[in-house]
């Protein structure tokens, strides 16, 4: 059965108070098209589990790019090792985020990139959590169980089992088998495995048999909905050159 559907239809599975996992490490591999669809869905009180929360420099969201910050009005809690409001020119000022947090409208849980991945892995495989040697006696261990096993100290980290995973791949077949390109792979395969329901945005959809079976990174069993980015969207394969030009401007704005 084909898993192709529209973003609208896919988003009907997202509800108030859900935990959403998504990849973000710059624009590469981040589901920018689905972020916009989630805004349109209008659900609230979401928990957002994301490796990085990096807003665009000022003015680029207005020009059609998206970033996780557009979800802020719908988000109650962010679980992320890196919130990039400080130090880089951004769409959001640190003060804005800080005020949200102070008013109790936004909760922030920190982690490390590696531990966040292991927590998702634990969620994916049904483990009850992990004992991590990373983070012992640091700010990420505050309020967590510390345990010594064979003379090494560990901190207990709970598993993460997101309700919905929003991911991006290069190509999908109609069965939901996915291939990625370059560093856009990111946390996408793991988020697909850890989430109860996974929605993927792709540049291109092909028929079963077109993708080399050996090259498939995420087998279709982990994917529920395949959304092909419409040609007219800035994130579509058709407008790739334009997007790259826009990103060159983003780099300049960040002084890179």
């Amino acid at each position, binding site marked *: 059965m084909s898993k192709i559907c529209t973003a609208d239809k896919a988003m009907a599975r997202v509800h108030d108070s859900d935990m959403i996992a998504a990849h973000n*490490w*710059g*624009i*590469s*591999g981040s589901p920018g098209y689905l972020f916009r669809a989630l805004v349109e869905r209008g659900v609230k009180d979401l928990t957002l589990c994301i*490796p*990085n929360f*990096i807003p665009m420099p000022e003015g680029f969201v207005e020009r059609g790019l998206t970033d996780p910050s557009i979800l802020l009005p719908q988000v109650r809690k962010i679980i*992320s*090792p*890196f*919130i*990039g*409001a*400080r*130090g880089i020119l951004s769409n959001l000022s*640190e003060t804005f*985020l*800080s005020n949200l947090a102070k008013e109790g409208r936004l909760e*922030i849980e*920190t*982690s*490390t*990139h*590696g*531990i966040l*991945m*292991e927590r*998702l*892995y634990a969620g994916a495989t049904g483990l009850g959590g992990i004992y991590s*040697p*990373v*983070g*012992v*006696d*640091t*700010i*990420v261990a*505050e309020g967590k169980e510390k345990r010594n096993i064979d003379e090494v100290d560990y901190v207990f980290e709970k598993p993460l089992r997101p309700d919905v995973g929003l991911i991006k791949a*290069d190509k999908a077949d109609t069965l939901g088998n996915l291939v*990625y*390109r*370059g*560093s*856009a*792979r*990111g*946390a*996408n*395969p*793991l988020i697909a495995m850890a989430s109860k329901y996974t929605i993927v945005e792709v540049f291109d959809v092909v028929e079963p048999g077109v993708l080399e079976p050996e090259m498939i*990174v995420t087998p279709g069993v982990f994917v529920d909905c395949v959304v092909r980015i419409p040609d007219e969207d800035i994130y579509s394969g058709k407008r*790739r050159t334009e*997007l*790259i030009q826009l*990103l*060159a401007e983003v*780099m300049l704005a*960040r002084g*890179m």
Partner: protein
Amino acid sequence: MKDRLTEELLAIRAAQEIKPGDYCNLGIGLPQLCASHVPEGAIVQAENGTLGYGPLVDQDNVDKMDLDFIDAGGSFFTPAPGMAFFDILTSFMMIRSGRLKSFLGGLQVSERGDLAIHSLSSTDKFPQIGGSMDLAWGAKRLIVLMTHNTKDGVSKIVKELTLPMSARACVDLIITDIAVIEVTSGGLVLRECVPGWTPEEIQEQTEAPLKVADDVKEMEF
């Protein structure tokens, strides 16, 4: 005022720690500057999922920008033969497996090699821990690059950390703008002095006690 190393020279000295055959990770900030000085035969890892990428795209070759070729700091890179891509779970297995030489920036290092990378507390500011704690904990060898003193002249090499710790007893070598210092089980050992500096003058700038290596030498580039 004595001359201190520029960031570029500090990075050149740090890159001498990378040998052909090494796998290494260059952290955000000062360590990134080592990228242009990595010797032939060493392989650089980006924690967002690449091993062995080519030179970064700069403003002279913007036409080489590829949407899907970005390093951990968000810079675009060019492909290189033998390059490998992987997901971030795999990437951090690599990082924590003790196979990488890691280069990190730092705000403080204690005499036991405890490292503080962030001044933030979890309660009042926003976390920017990223992968630094994993890199510090799991490195085969951890080299910290930082200025020796803060802008106000305070020593960053201290007896006890006053900033939040990132990882305990993890640092192997400290390279600053005036010295190279090794962290040993017997304390900090001064290995190299930047030209123009004596061991005594470096100790004056350093809160933690330094032992001067028998073969202490002038830094070479």
